[in-house]
């Protein structure tokens, strides 16, 4: 067999392995209802329920943080995260969770927040005119 052909076969084999890994390794975006049915870890995109309490009591347990989140279909679910409370989560516009359902709770292994690019998106801070 020609050497060029061998190289070609090796390259194609690696490329195929990569494509397969896209299907086997990659996860899916789901809502909480779908997450309940699924066995494996997946991603849920949603929004923080700002009216309910975000529970983080480091004095008791520095590695337990829980909150309530709506998915994109407005289904609410309790989310439990083993770790410290991510800074700035109150301000997040959108949250992407990685994890799986356990009973009625979603066990997050990773929390990715999308925050306004600046602190307070386009909210002018008005201060009373002082002598300055």
């Amino acid at each position, binding site marked *: 067999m020609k050497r060029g052909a061998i190289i070609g076969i090796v390259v194609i084999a690696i490329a195929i392995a990569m494509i397969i890994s896209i299907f086997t390794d990659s996860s899916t975006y789901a809502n909480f209802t779908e997450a309940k049915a699924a066995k494996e870890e997946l991603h849920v995109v949603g929004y923080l329920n700002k009216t309910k309490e975000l529970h983080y009591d480091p004095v008791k347990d520095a590695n337990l943080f829980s909150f309530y989140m709506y998915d994109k279909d407005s289904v609410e679910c309790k989310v439990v995260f083993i770790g410290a409370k991510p*800074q700035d989560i109150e301000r997040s516009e959108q949250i992407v969770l990685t994890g799986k359902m356990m009973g009625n709770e979603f066990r997050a292994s990773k929390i990715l927040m999308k925050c306004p690019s600046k602190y307070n998106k386009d909210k*002018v801070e008005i*201060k009373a005119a002082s002598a300055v």
Partner: protein
Amino acid sequence: MAIKYAGESLLPGQLGQFFVVLAFGSALLSFISYFFATKNKDDFSWQRIARSAFWINLISVVGIGSCLFYIIYSHQFEYYYAWSHSSRALPVYFIISSFWEGQEGSFWLWTFWEAVLGAVLVFKAKTWERPVMVSVMLCQTLLGLMLIGVEVFGQRIGSSPFILLRNALDLKEMAPVLFADPTNLSNYLNYIQDGEGLNPLLQNYWMVIHPPTLFLGFASMIVPFSFAFAGLWQGRHKEWMKAAMPWALFAAMVLGTGIIMGSFWAYEALNFGGFWAWDPVENASIIPWLTLIGGIHVMLAYRNSGHAYFTAAFLLLLSFVLVVYASYLTRSGVLGDTSVHAFTDLGMSWQLIIFNLIFLGLMIWVLVYSRKEMPISKKDEETYSREFWLFIGALFLVLACLHIIAFTSIPVVNKLFGTKIAPPVNIVAHYNQWQSGFAVIITLLTGVTQFLKYKRTDPRKFYASLVVSVIVAAVITAIVAYITGAYHNLVYILLTFAAIFSIVSNARILGDALKGKWKLAGSAVAHIGFGLLLIGGLVAAATNKIVSVNQSGDIPVAGFEDVEKPGDNLFLNEGVPANMGQYRITYVGDSVSGVDVFYKVNYERLDKSGKVTEKFQLQPKAQQNAKMGLIGTPSTRHYINRDIYTIITAANRIESLAGDGHDHADGQEEDPLKGYEEPVIHEVKVGDTISYRTGYMLIKGVNKAAKLENIPLGANDVLVGLTVEVHANDEKVYTAEPVLLIKEGRIYDFGKDVAQEGLKLRFSNIMPQKDRLELTVYQKPKPEKKWIVMKAIEFPYINFFWCGTIIMTVGFFMSILRRSKELNKKEA
């Protein structure tokens, strides 16, 4: 009716906007003129126009930067860019970094570097100036368009940094009550005292230096592209690579340094807990670097053997196309779901897509156009030749790159096809697994090729010299594996071996260089640096371990203990030591300096018998930012062979710094009793003593002659004060006189604070029938015991990573010197 706004300084913005338009116009003119100058070789008039237009472009770009800097520096918050990226409190060097916090500023940085590189080309490129500057100025035109910020047929083109705050935002919507009054609206600047400030994460000196370096790297990628393009277009196939080589090396060196600076910044100053997270934004910057490195190696193969011409041209062109693709990924907002660092969309994604398509189109066109003329050799390379294995190495670099592109582009695929693919759940493990595989092959090749000659090598000699290095490398690997406590992971052992083998083989070349063959030293040094970088980066840091593992044995949530690993965060009360691995750590207090709080954490290393063998203190810093909450900056103890990295993840709130986080827009009053405990009501008479948590109070008397400012008293009104002496436990004495007013039959009372003791006293009623006075005491809750939550990570052998980077950069620099000397010699 047009409103006249008071106090605005419009000149710098108008001047800046003028320069923006001029920069675009002159770039376009220069591009067109260089194009015709290339077409009409004997006509110098086009070149004269092109050059003048280029110089105007350079001046305008500098002008844009100066105006913008002036605006930010003099705190002109009537400009949206200054308002949203800076504040009065920022020191000068952070004003520089707020300059490029936004997209507009970073585009400016790009065009600025491109203009500077253009100037070098105008002076140095000689016969290449005209064709090379065509694509440089085309890119400059397209970048100019990104800053122009005008609307054409209802579609905004670009985003100008000189837009006014009142045009960027709807002020009336922000504060409807206040700005309903036209006088207030025209004096709106009086109400805007300060800008939004710079994100605390970016307030770091690395943020001053990292973006300019990275953008110089991105900008310089256009030059090798332009040489390749010009060479193919003008049919100068034999010459262009020599001229492009120093530029390609320069781009690879600067971009590589810029990327690693970013990772050093993340490691030293950010709270990501590491130096490389395979975040899409990081990936986007490394993609073009990999193809460029591949391209450089294949160029060498072609110049020495005549093989692989197409691959070299293709990779050099592709590298810049990927730079543009990377800027699409990071700037269009498409990565929103997968990256924390990407910019949000400024409504310019379509413009970025066009930018991509133009350069992709140019690449395809020139490759097709010149396909027949390309010097492609018909003969296969010898198996035992350097060029063949250089080609294989480049092939694997491209495959590695393809893998990163494929997984980073998942959001793009979702957008194009409406699919819902999410990245792998454990993305870091996924990348590490694949990329270490590629890295093993590529690193082995950087060693093996050192034993091969161009064109043909005698296989027996090759194996004979190879075998020595393999044995040496195997022995060192075994020693390293033993010292570091053995790697359990086969991939890491292979990678360590590959890196050590590469270092050994290249050190041999370096040995020859010391005997006088200096020419080859550059690549050897760069390869050694790369080997060290790999050892530090992939092998050692991938085995980092969290040392702050919760050892109290607490079960986080009942029922889950079998599935959950213990948490990474450790809770520490002030003064109470905790054991963490081989350390005993104690949080001993904090000190406040400006906006930063330094948390002092003592580390004591204990040996097996419990004796302290080493003591040191780390002071991880955190900003308690009213708007963003607690933002930690790690503190790291550096050793030669490892780092102990410590970061605060939570701590007590410090009210004076954190504030209440609310904006009191439109004069909303805060509840004056906020932060106090439930009040205690005492019925007292003069002479009574009341105790409170940290002392006691003495009722001294009733003051009938009390006075209140601004409130005139009627004939039947009563105003009395109650004099209270507060004796604190620390023996300090304070006097307070809350007053009670009975006006037209209604009771009002005016409380008094004793702030030092956290008390508020209200004289709330008089009860004549009982002969008692009512005193209501509010007290602030007991100050919480100080605590912190911290995370500590041990990074073994990370210094190899940084050292390797520096050595690799030095190697690149040596190669640049050699290649540009070669170039000058030939032309002389």
